[in-house]
């Protein structure tokens, strides 16, 4: 397993290199100019050229890449063209916010989805199953931004129980921090929960049809033992893959939820960076997102043999 881990980590190097080249090139192929965004419409082309020179945008693309990449190797992702903020510390701060929301919502989603999926599969075709499937379809049909605004209106505006927008770090103030996290976590949780439940239900249905399950039941084992000890581990392995993908995509930025609740997360940072053509921010954020994907997939791969002993690393 150690050799596998080292090998996978080494594989990230060419992956990230490729991502770096692609991101650097593609963001520059998009029409628009960060200097133009910075000076707006109040200025003239002479100043615009001066600003472009200050940003290093008057250099050739190859030279710009060389300058940027040398710094990246030194662990310096540059500074934001828009507000002069250092990109690496900014990314880490934003990632911490996103990670709090995503990990909490993922934790609750899994805690609810696994038993629900199991219950639906074990009562396949019953009213319980139909009810659960109906709720899943409903959850999947509600866009997260709409769920967010709805939650905000109910719990923030009408009931006044929770704050509507803003963010307080749990490190600075645990209780206030939790207050600000509740609504975004719930808004994000709905979609995740439905996806994982659906996956769990379908794989469980498949596993419950296998001969060894019939054999276990024929032995007279309790239904809960059959479900949790015999069926669950085999059904969970494919769900784990889905969990890894969801986790990676959300950690890479839950931009919509972050925008709705004004959370200073990675997704919003990236989207703002794209709109402003803030090249260092976009490049740095996408490198980080690529890295998150690689690590999330690695973790899933490492966990896989625990649930599916047929898999050997």
């Amino acid at each position, binding site marked *: 397993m150690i050799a596998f881990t080292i090998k996978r980590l080494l594989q990230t190097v060419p992956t990230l290199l490729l991502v770096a080249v692609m991101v650097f090139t593609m963001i520059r192929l*998009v*029409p*628009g*100019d*960060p200097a*133009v*965004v*910075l*000076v*707006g*419409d*109040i*200025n*003239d*082309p*002479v*100043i*615009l050229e*001066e*600003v472009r020179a*200050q940003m290093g945008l008057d250099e050739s693309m190859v030279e710009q890449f060389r300058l940027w990449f040398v710094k990246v190797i030194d662990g310096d992702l540059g500074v934001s063209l*828009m*507000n*002069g*903020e250092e990109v690496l510390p*900014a990314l880490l701060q*934003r990632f911490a916010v996103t990670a709090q929301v995503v990990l909490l919502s993922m934790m609750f989603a899994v805690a609810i989805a696994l038993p629900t999926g199991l219950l639906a599969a074990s009562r396949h075709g019953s009213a319980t199953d139909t009810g659960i499937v109906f709720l899943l379809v409903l959850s999947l049909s509600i866009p997260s931004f709409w769920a*967010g*605004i709805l939650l*905000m*209106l109910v719990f*923030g*505006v009408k009931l*006044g129980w929770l*704050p*509507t*927008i*803003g*963010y307080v770090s749990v490190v600075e*103030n*645990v*209780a*206030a921090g*939790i*207050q600000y996290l509740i609504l975004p976590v719930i808004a994000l949780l709905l979609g995740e929960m439905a996806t994982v439940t659906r996956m769990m239900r379908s794989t469980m249905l498949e596993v419950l049809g296998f001969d060894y399950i019939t054999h276990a039941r024929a032995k007279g084992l309790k239904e809960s033992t059959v479900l949790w000890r015999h069926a669950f581990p085999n059904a969970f392995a494919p769900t784990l893959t889905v969990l890894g993908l969801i986790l990676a995509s959300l950690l890479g930025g839950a931009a919509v939820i972050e*925008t*709705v*609740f*004004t959370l*200073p997360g990675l997704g*919003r*940072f990236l989207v*703002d960076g794209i*709109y*402003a*053509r803030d090249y260092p921010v976009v490049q740095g954020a996408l490198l980080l997102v690529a890295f998150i994907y690689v690590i999330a997939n690695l973790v899933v791969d490492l966990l896989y043999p625990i649930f599916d002993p047929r898999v050997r690393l």
Partner: protein
Amino acid sequence: MTTQPEPMTPQLRCLTLIANLLLLAGHATAIAEDRHLRVAINTDIRSNNPGVARDANTDTVIHHIVESLVGYGADLRVRPVLADSISVSDDGLIYRFHIRPGVRFHNGEPLTAAEVLWNWQRFLDPETKWQCRRWYSADSEEPGKSVIVDVRAPQPDTVEFELAEPSVLFLDRLANVQCPAAIVHPDSVDANGEWRLPVGTGPFEFSEWKRGQYVELRRFADYHTPEGTPDGFAGAKPVYADSLRFIVSPDHASTKAALLGDGIDLYPGVPMNSLAELKAEKDIALSESPLLGWTALLVQTEDSLLSDPRMRRAIAHAIDREQIVGFNTYGHASPNSSAVPVGDPAHDAAHDAWYEPSREKARALLREAGYAGEIIEIQTNRKYSNMYDNAVVIQAMLHSVGINARLQVLDWASQLANYYAGKFQVSAFSFSALANPTMRYAKLIGPKDRRATYQWDSERANELLAELLAADDPEHSNTIYRQLHEVMRDEVPIIGLYNAHSVTAMRADVSGYDSWPMGLSRLWGVYRPGWRGDNH
């Protein structure tokens, strides 16, 4: 007989603890909100360095921290701010400012002429990257520039500016809101001359900037307010709030919910389609004002098709401005095709003359110009919904007269880049607020081969602009404005649509807030019940 309470289970204990913590947090928030105003801004500020890295939100925040020698009053005329008197020599070359006594910087140091000189040396140094250096610098090509030959301090409380030649725009430029000639203390930069933070003279001092979240300012206890009543960026600035928090909230629906849920106190720039809903809320009050920003349709006169004025006139006839203004501002503005804003004292009936909507006349002009159904692309973006909506309706209006108009929806950065390069046929656009119509015309008129952002390149317009830049009598300026509009109507280099309308929504118990044509929020003078009448 008394009964003993049942012992709490660990789960119940845990829940009670969480509930108590949340209540405590609520209590802490309530304490922190004492004399605290929370204002929504839709994007984070760019910097706290005045006039260097900026946008409208940055300008809003920065004007609470810093002040200039002069500023715009509510009537958009230039008034003294850090100065208490201004005199101009007979030849128009020397401007003398007497500094208002008692003004202190946020670090407690008094304002003297020495700090003003230090700031101007800094402004005129290219290394400062001050965006408006070109207005005062001999080496720029800015039309009607106000070249400063010397800045001196004949007395510790007096500053003199010597210009190379008389400039009718000098005071307006000093008062400009996008490039404030803000006087800060030298402590604002470090030993290497690098910017630290603004140590200004304004009613609030810089406190904290959590990027992507909020900017917080606290009341400057030693603020020395000008006398009189509040007057735009000039006049008295009574301060009632102990702190201001500008909260970054990019989503309109969330900002509205936050206002309704008492998560913010003021929401400037409310979309017009939310107006009716917010008006019906008893806990919400609104403040409205026409704005100086000008929404227009740019027409590329260099384009092979649109270089024919008959084509441009046909487009002008095809557009029903009343309809556009009606749906975009919900009847809160009126059409304006003149560069002189509605509400400016110089805007009289002559500026209302424009092409009436007429499909017949438009079709006749198209036939005359030999238009054969060629595609005309209208550039727009989705960032600013008013520009997008305008483009969609204008496309339909052009179709109705037989013009094959197509939308090209770009993101704002791309559309702006095209504006700078002159790469468009027609572009749905909005110009930032400029208080002086002369500055607006100077921005519009000029040779396109030297600067693609000039929208109007004609001999008549250039001659009139030169005359305008030399006019030192307001009546003379007004006459030239009228002539310019007449020529604009004839040549149609741009089709002005309307001056935008601004609405700020606030909690009903917030008083003292006034929207004004400049658009930027002013939070001095704003209070809640019980905030006035004591040591404030």
